[in-house]
């Protein structure tokens, strides 16, 4: 069930926005005609396979590829020696940054392997079986080193060191000696000591979360054609084709003008497909194999072992409140696993952890910590879920001690426009309190939960959202339709949500727009589909295109009626002049007689992306014998600004909750004591399936973002933030144990229950 609650100051009368049209890519996807990266077949195509490290931490002493190269059918073998020796410098790639040398070494290990599954060498052969056979013949001599597998141990002075050249960075100040702590961040406002002195109740707890994977259905894949003239074409599964182009260009030291990236349909990314793994390798293999196209597709085991999971973490939280329930001070320490190379999302976690609350005294420290696990990547509100699990669980305990309703406590302390974040900036118009009111008034919250071993949990979440750079181009067709090109890969239905914003501006139907995702040579620069930015920013580009097309079509109408443009009105897709009128489609059929084609393009870089807040309610029943947690009911409330396509917004909320439930109850990377991943299949890495979840109800609150022409806020990320905390609080309500470790698997719940029994 979806409920939409507009909190709009001005009444809107949209004819397209807020409706649920047929999605443009629906038929292709349900009939199997949509083309994904693994579907690519090119004449003379070779198949690639990768040799990966069996060790978590080892020096590479030698690599002998001669036996592999002599296998009939093998066309090329590449190792790190084939990669240019890039500098250890930070490159800005759209939204994010990357250390080029680290990324190069992650793509093919140079002198050291840093995690189980680290890529070492690749083979291209006439078929996949020969490629795999040849890979098995590559001889690597290792000097095995002790693995560093735990974030807290990695921070100790006597820990084995992953990178001798990494010094702890503290806002530009470098430490004196090698360390696994790549960076220390800090946010501080007010006087924490005094704030805790003023507290009537203080709760201080520690939390542990495991590394988890984004779990997209489609594995990473890439195909490259290196032409004799130096032009390169790459087909791949990515969240951002321009990002792939930039990264490949930097890693291989090739001008971006030589590279064309064609984004295929994508079977999920959730942040894990912003970076690159295979693309430079298939380019090199294509070049070395005599300019034959080469395709590589990862197995599920490779995806889990070697592509970006999100950080495991250790978090300490201390919060104090006065007798009335007002928060007086907060303190937190977050240590996030970055994996093999610096760059976890601990900074984002530091921003998320207390974001929903008005706090005058705060101290938050964050540490980016190297461990012998795959280099972490973004995962849906990266860093946020770990942080909220800690904070929102402590808040539940504060509420219990203060005998306060958890929503009333949050209403008392919740942020609104003008309040200051813990990292300093002041909020503009936000809708957190509105989500709380909607949750409080929901049928779910107003319905008492009855039965033994049952409990209800509440938690809130925040995500920054992002704007970024987007482009769109459109041309008017003579039948009244519009062909729309954007560079935004469509992961969650953004073709349609972007097309709807173009259609709204022109007063025509969403079905009249023919949206397509273009390659890097066919449309202006567009950042990837991440940061909950695509409907917001690329939608804004489409809005700008609609304004341009409207102006140009007004000129055509003026030409037909032989009058001035300013004497013509345009109302919901109809041009009006005196008693004359012509529809957009009718006018489109007369373009030839009024000057020929009408096209428009726009590029935007909006800054006012508008943060998102969510509040979730969950009911569970816990089996005290087995520790199994059964979810009975779940309601996700979220401020969407303006829901362009409500069905898609609902899907984003439900998808985020489903992933959050998996993270909360079952998912975790399991390593043996040598750092070998032991659950690298769907059978052993337990993601939730339909039977694990009830219908997830959604309440969409609409507090328009004043920084967008239609009031849009990003919606994709914040719904994964509250679920683990909401579930932990519900488990406490059910059986009285406070869970401080993710996942809250049956074994862990039973262990806590046994501790409770003494």
């Amino acid at each position, binding site marked *: 069930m979806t409920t939409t609650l507009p909190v709009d100051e001005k009444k809107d009368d949209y004819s397209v926005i807020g409706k649920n049209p047929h999605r443009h890519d629906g038929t292709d996807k349900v009939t199997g005609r949509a083309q994904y990266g693994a579907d690519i077949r090119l004449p003379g195509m070779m198949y690639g396979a990768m040799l990966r490290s069996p060790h978590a931490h080892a020096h590479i002493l030698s690599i002998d590829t001669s036996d592999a190269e002599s296998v009939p059918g093998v066309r090329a073998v590449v190792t790190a020696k084939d990669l240019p020796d890039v500098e250890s410098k*930070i490159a*800005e790639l759209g*939204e*994010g*940054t990357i250390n080029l040398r680290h990324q190069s070494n992650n793509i093919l290990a140079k002198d050291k392997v840093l995690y189980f599954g680290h890529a070492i060498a690749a083979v291209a052969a006439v078929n996949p079986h020969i490629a795999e056979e040849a890979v098995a013949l590559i001889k690597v001599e290792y000097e095995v080193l002790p693995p560093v597998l735990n974030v807290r141990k990695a921070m100790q002075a006597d820990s084995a060191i992953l990178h001798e050249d990494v010094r702890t*960075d*503290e*806002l*530009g*100040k470098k430490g004196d000696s090698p360390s696994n702590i790549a*960076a*220390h*961040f*800090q*946010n*501080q406002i007010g006087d924490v000591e005094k704030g805790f002195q003023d507290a009537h109740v203080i709760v201080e707890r520690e939390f542990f979360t495991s590394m988890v994977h*984004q779990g997209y259905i489609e594995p990473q894949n890439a195909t490259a054609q290196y032409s004799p003239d130096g032009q390169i074409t790459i087909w791949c599964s990515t969240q951002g084709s321009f990002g792939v182009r930039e990264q490949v260009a930097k890693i291989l030291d090739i001008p971006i003008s030589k590279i064309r990236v064609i984004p295929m349909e994508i079977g999920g*990314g*959730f*942040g*894990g497909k*912003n970076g690159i793994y295979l693309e430079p390798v298939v380019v090199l293999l294509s070049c070395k194999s005599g300019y034959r196209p080469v395709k590589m597709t990862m197995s599920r085991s490779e995806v889990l072992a070697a592509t970006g999971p999100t950080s495991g973490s250790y978090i300490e939280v201390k919060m104090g409140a006065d007798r009335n329930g007002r928060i007086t001070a907060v303190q937190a320490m977050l240590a996030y696993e970055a994996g093999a190379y610096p760059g976890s*999302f601990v*900074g*984002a976690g*530091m*921003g998320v952890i207390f974001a929903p609350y008005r706090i005058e005294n705060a101290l938050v420290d*964050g540490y980016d910590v190297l461990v012998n696990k795959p280099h972490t*990547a*973004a*995962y*849906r*509100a*990266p*860093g946020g879920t770990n942080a909220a699990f800690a904070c929102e669980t402590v808040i539940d305990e504060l509420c219990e001690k203060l005998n306060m309703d958890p929503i009333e406590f949050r209403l008392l302390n919740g942020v609104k426009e003008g309040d200051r974040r813990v*990292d*300093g*900036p*002041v*909020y*503009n118009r936000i809708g957190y309190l509105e989500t709380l009111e909607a949750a409080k008034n929901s049928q779910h919250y107003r319905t008492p939960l009855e039965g033994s071993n049952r409990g209800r949990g509440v938690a809130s979440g925040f*995500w*920054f*959202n*992002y*704007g970024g750079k987007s482009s769109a181009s459109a041309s008017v067709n003579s039948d009244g339709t519009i062909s729309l090109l954007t560079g935004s890969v469509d992961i969650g239905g953004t073709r349609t949500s972007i097309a709807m914003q173009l259609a709204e501006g022109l007063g025509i139907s969403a079905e009249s727009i023919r949206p397509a995702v273009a390659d890097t040579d066919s449309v202006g620069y567009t950042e990837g589909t*991440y*940061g*909950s*930015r695509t409907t917001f920013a690329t939608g804004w580009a489409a809005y700008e295109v609609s304004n341009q097309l409207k102006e140009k079509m007004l000129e055509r109408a003026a030409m037909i009626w032989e009058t001035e443009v300013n004497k013509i009105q345009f109302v919901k897709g109809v041009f009006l002049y005196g008693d004359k009128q012509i529809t957009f489609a009718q006018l489109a059929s007369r373009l030839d007689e009024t000057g020929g084609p009408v096209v428009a393009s726009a590029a935007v*870089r909006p*800054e*006012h*992306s508008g943060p998102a807040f969510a509040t979730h309610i969950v009911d569970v029943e816990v089996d005290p014998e087995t520790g199994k947690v059964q979810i009975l009911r779940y309601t996700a409330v979220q401020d969407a600004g303006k829901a362009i396509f409500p069905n898609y917004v609902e899907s984003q909320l439900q998808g985020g909750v489903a992933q959050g439930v998996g993270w909360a109850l079952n998912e975790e990377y399991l390593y043996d004591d040598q750092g070998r991943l032991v659950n690298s299949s769907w059978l052993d890495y337990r993601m939730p399936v339909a039977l694990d979840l009830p219908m997830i109800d959604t309440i969409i609150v609409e507090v328009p973002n004043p*920084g967008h022409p239609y009031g849009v806020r990003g919606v994709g*990320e914040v719904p994964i933030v509250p679920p683990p905390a909401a579930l932990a609080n519900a488990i406490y309500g059910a059986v009285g144990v406070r869970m401080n470790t993710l996942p809250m698997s049956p074994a862990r719940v039973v262990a806590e229950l046994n501790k409770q029994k003494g």
Partner: protein
Amino acid sequence: MPVVWIPSLLRELTKGERSLIVEGETVREVIENMESRYPGVKDRLCNGEQLHPSISVVVDGHTGMLKLRQRLHESSEVHFVIAMSGG
């Protein structure tokens, strides 16, 4: 003049000052003027002539996409926060 909030890890250079009123019409000018009063600040915030990649500048509640070139007005509030990206 714009008010600049000093990140806690930088306050060792600003003699503990948590915020400063600094003249400047752009973020770059503000940093240059801070540098003249508190030597070393620019080196911590910038990588050469660019804002350090791990830092975002937030002006009046919004991330300044123009970074050092971001325009300021008399009552602007400037923050240097941890740069981050999304999934």
